[in-house]
Each structure stands twice: as structure tokens, then as C-alpha cells.
């Protein structure tokens, strides 16, 4: 089942069996993609949207000097370019970070879902609104938090999202990003990220090594990053994890 993680644990919008079946039927292709591969180029005309099944992806914008700002991270279960359905073109690039598996849904299939299943249409809309909520949190992070706070906030967000996807036990998860990615997410240099990670390690809050993250004290890390998971719209009991989580995406 390709849609297993879509809207999993999201507050009040988990898919009904008939909705899931309809969405599964709308998938026309399963594609495996290498790491660091562009999936959508800004300005490109789009006729499909894609659901991330396995792996990690990002949205990014390059400045005129070619320096990159990652503006979103996507985890398994995200319908990552559903925005492209109404917009038809995106204003940013989308690429894989790790090897990824994606499910392709044609826009004309989404047209039919909108006409025939308004409840499912509302849930698709909900998923794009979560993306918008995450963007607001990322703005807050970059605008108001110091270097340690930015990294702490981001790692807390990924932990909760991956708990919801069944890919974190609430303390440990594979993130698949490099320290450079983390720098581009947090608007910091590599040197700065290095020092932040050392600080978090020395404070016994968190260790990030070889793309694996271990958060010793999620509550303390959340406090340091002013992280409140409400913007993720994840049910309370799906936020803190269990030992059954799988640690590789």
C-alpha cells in the first residue's frame, strides 16, 4: 500500500478505507529516484503530483550566486508537490536528498477525485495547508531563533514528523541529510553548524552523526528551540514515539 503514511496521525483527517482505495487507484506509476536528483524544476509545466513513499526530499531556492536555501523538507507520507495541482508550475525546485520512491498521480485523476469525493478533496487540501503551516514555522525559526535554536527547532520538527510516519522512536531517527544540508536549512555556515552540534552534544541534548540523530532529551531540546508541535496538526498520541519505529526511511 503506497499511501500508508499519507496523513497518518494527522488530527482528524486520516483516510477512510474507500478514500485510500481511491487514492491508491489514482497512482499511475511508482518511480525510484537516486539521491540528489531534481524531480521538479521551477517554472516547468506539471501534469502530475507525487507522493513520497520512501526517502527524503527537499524544496530549495538558489540565490543569484548559486547559494542554496532549503525551504522545506519532505518525509515519507508527504504528498510533496500537491501544490502543483492548482498551480501547474512551481516557483522553486524539488529534489531528492536520499534515494527515494515516489508515487505519481496525474492531475486529471485529481480532477475526478475533486468532483466525486469532496471529503477526500478536503483532506488533500488539508495536507497542503500543513505544508503552509510548516513554512510559517520555518520563517519563525529563521527570523527569531539563534543558531542553536534553529537547529534544535528543526531536529524537533523532524523527530515529531518521523514519529508520526513510524520512522522515529521519539529519540532516534535516520535523517539522511548532511551537515551542509542542515546549514542550508538553518541559514548557517558549516562552521556554525559544527559548533552548534558540539554545543548540543556537550549539553547532552542531541547527537547528529552520519545522518543519524539521537535526541537525548526531546523536551529540553524543544525548550531550547522554542518548538511547539501544534503546527504539525499531529494527534497528541502520535507525537512522542514508541519502540516499534523503523529507523531507516
Amino acid at each position: 500500500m503506497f499511501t500508508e503514511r499519507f496523513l497518518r496521525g494527522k488530527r482528524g483527517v486520516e483516510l477512510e478505507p474507500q478514500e485510500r482505495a481511491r487514492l491508491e487507484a489514482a497512482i499511475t506509476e511508482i518511480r525510484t529516484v537516486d539521491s540528489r536528483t531534481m524531480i521538479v524544476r521551477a517554472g516547468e509545466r506539471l501534469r502530475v503530483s507525487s507522493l513520497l513513499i520512501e526517502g527524503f526530499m527537499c524544496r530549495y531556492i538558489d540565490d543569484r550566486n548559486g547559494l542554496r536555501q532549503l525551504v522545506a523538507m519532505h518525509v515519507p507520507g508527504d504528498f510533496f508537490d500537491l501544490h502543483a495541482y492548482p498551480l501547474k508550475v512551481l516557483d522553486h525546485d524539488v529534489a531528492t536528498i536520499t534515494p527515494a520512491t515516489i508515487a505519481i498521480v496525474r492531475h486529471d485523476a485529481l480532477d475526478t477525485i475533486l468532483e466525486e469525493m469532496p471529503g477526500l478533496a478536503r483532506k488533500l487540501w488539508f495536507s497542503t495547508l500543513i505544508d503552509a503551516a510548516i513554512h510559517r514555522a520555518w520563517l519563525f525559526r529563521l527570523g527569531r531563533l539563534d543558531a542553536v535554536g534553529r537547529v534544535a527547532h528543526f531536529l524537533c520538527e523532524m523527530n515529531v514528523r518521523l514519529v508520526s510516519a513510524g520512522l522515529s522512536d521519539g529519540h532516534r531517527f535516520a535523517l539522511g541529510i548532511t551537515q551542509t544540508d542542515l546549514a542550508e536549512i538553518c541559514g548557517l555556515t558549516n562552521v556554525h553548524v559544527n559548533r552548534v552540534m558540539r554545543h548540543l552534544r556537550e549539553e547532552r541534548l542531541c547527537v547528529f552523526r552520519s545522518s543519524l540523530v539521537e535526541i537525548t532529551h526531546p523536551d529540553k531540546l524543544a525548550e531550547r528551540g522554542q518548538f511547539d508541535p501544534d503546527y504539525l496538526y499531529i494527534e497528541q498520541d502520535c507525537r512522542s514515539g514508541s519502540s516499534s519505529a523503523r529507523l531507516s526511511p
Partner: protein
Amino acid sequence: MNFSVPQPLSQPGIASAEDGVVLLDGPNGVALTLTPDAAARTGHSLVSAAEMAERQRAEQGDAN
């Protein structure tokens, strides 16, 4: 909800050296990495601007 606009910050940023560059942390969301030369020139510029701002405050005090 507090609708106050951002105010001038009274806490200084903390500069430190790491791997041959200067890191400036805070106040608030400031998190910069500068070359030593850029850091030194920024420092001079800040001191100069701070002296000018002090004079402006003194002049405003005289006018009141």
C-alpha cells in the same frame, strides 16, 4: 497576543573565533559567520555607528 514592533536590542551579540572565522551569535536571530577581515571592519563600523548614535541621543536630550 503582543503586537509590539521589534525594538532596539539592549543585549549585545557574542562574537567568537572558530576554525579561522568569526561567529556572531545574537542578539535575537542573528547568526553570522564572517572572515576575520569582514569581522574587524564590521566591528569598526559598529563602534563608529554606536558613537554617532550616542551623540544623537545627547543632542535629542539637549533639545528636550
